[in-house]
């Protein structure tokens, strides 16, 4: 091991430090997204008129993005498997495929939002659209952060370095996928 790695030492808990950190991160993310989605749900239950607003969300764009994220999660877990086998270049390729999934997700999101904003459904239109852009926006930000980290890890993995990180970024990506799994019915299906 050429580089000094500190995130793969074992903690007293029996987990590697990197893995313990990622689980703590995801625990805090649950509170962030849980609070956001919980707020949306309780407002939605108190505002029947939101059903009228929700009919304008593009279920096809949301559906395509669901497909993209589910597929990218498959690539992420396959990258993890490749890393476990010690195959850095393969893990890097699969991480890059996951990255491309994130890029596709953002492209669809850009098209979707452009169309909605052009029709006047902006973040200030009403509380529903405020929630819509806030929830999807924070999720999109997580996608961008995940993609950035993934590129860095893929670069190192390609050289066979720090393969344990492939699993860690994969865990993060799966969580981002799970958040979308709940956002999709809330914003696109419940009309």
């Amino acid at each position: 091991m050429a580089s000094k790695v500190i995130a793969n030492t074992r903690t007293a808990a029996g987990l590697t430090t990197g893995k313990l950190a990622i689980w703590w991160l995801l625990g805090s993310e649950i509170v962030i997204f849980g609070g956001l989605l919980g707020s949306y749900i309780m407002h939605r239950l108190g505002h029947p008129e939101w059903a009228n607003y929700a009919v304008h969300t593009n279920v096809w764009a949301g559906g395509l993005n669901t497909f993209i994220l589910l597929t990218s999660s498959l690539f992420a877990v396959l990258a993890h498997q490749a890393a476990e086998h010690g195959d850095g270049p393969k893990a890097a390729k699969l991480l890059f495929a996951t990255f491309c999934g994130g890029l596709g997700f953002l492209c669809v999101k850009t098209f979707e939002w452009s169309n909605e904003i052009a029709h006047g459904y902006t973040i200030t239109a009403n509380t529903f659209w405020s929630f819509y852009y806030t929830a999807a926006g924070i999720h999109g930000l997580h996608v961008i952060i995940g993609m950035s980290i993934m590129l860095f890890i893929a670069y190192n993995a390609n050289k066979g370095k720090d393969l344990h990180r492939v699993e860690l970024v994969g865990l993060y990506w799966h969580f981002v996928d799970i958040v979308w799994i709940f956002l999709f019915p809330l914003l696109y299906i419940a009309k």
Partner: protein
Amino acid sequence: MAEQAHAHGDHGDHTSHYVKIWGALLVLFLISVIGPIFEIPALTLITAFGVACVKAFLVMKYFMHLDAELKLVWYILAGSLVLMFVFFFGTAADVRNHEGSRWVNVAAQAEVARGMAAGDGHHGEHGGGHEEGGHATEEGHGAEGEHGGTHEAPNGGH
């Protein structure tokens, strides 16, 4: 390197297994999209949110390998979930309801009335954003939202 990457003992090729899980996730996704076509609210609830829970379970179990993790990880995640539910159930009753025995949230009621009157919902009103600011008081005041008026969004009429 092996020490780093080996988290789960079994290092066989599980590609086909993961692809099957992915296939199951796609089938569930299709069910969630098709569900609302029948226009049965209870069915939509199941196909949308019930299926979402199943999908999340599959991702956690098979992609995140959560069942192979230490109990500590479960405690971390469960603790976060408990916090989330405390927040939800602690505030949901006040947010959902717009009036109680000694208070009325006039702004929220006005927002609902405006939204329902607008029909297709495109006539977005800015008053909605004032809802929390317009806390309901015993006298039923404090509703800036009342003055929010009905501001048509650009290109109104959709």
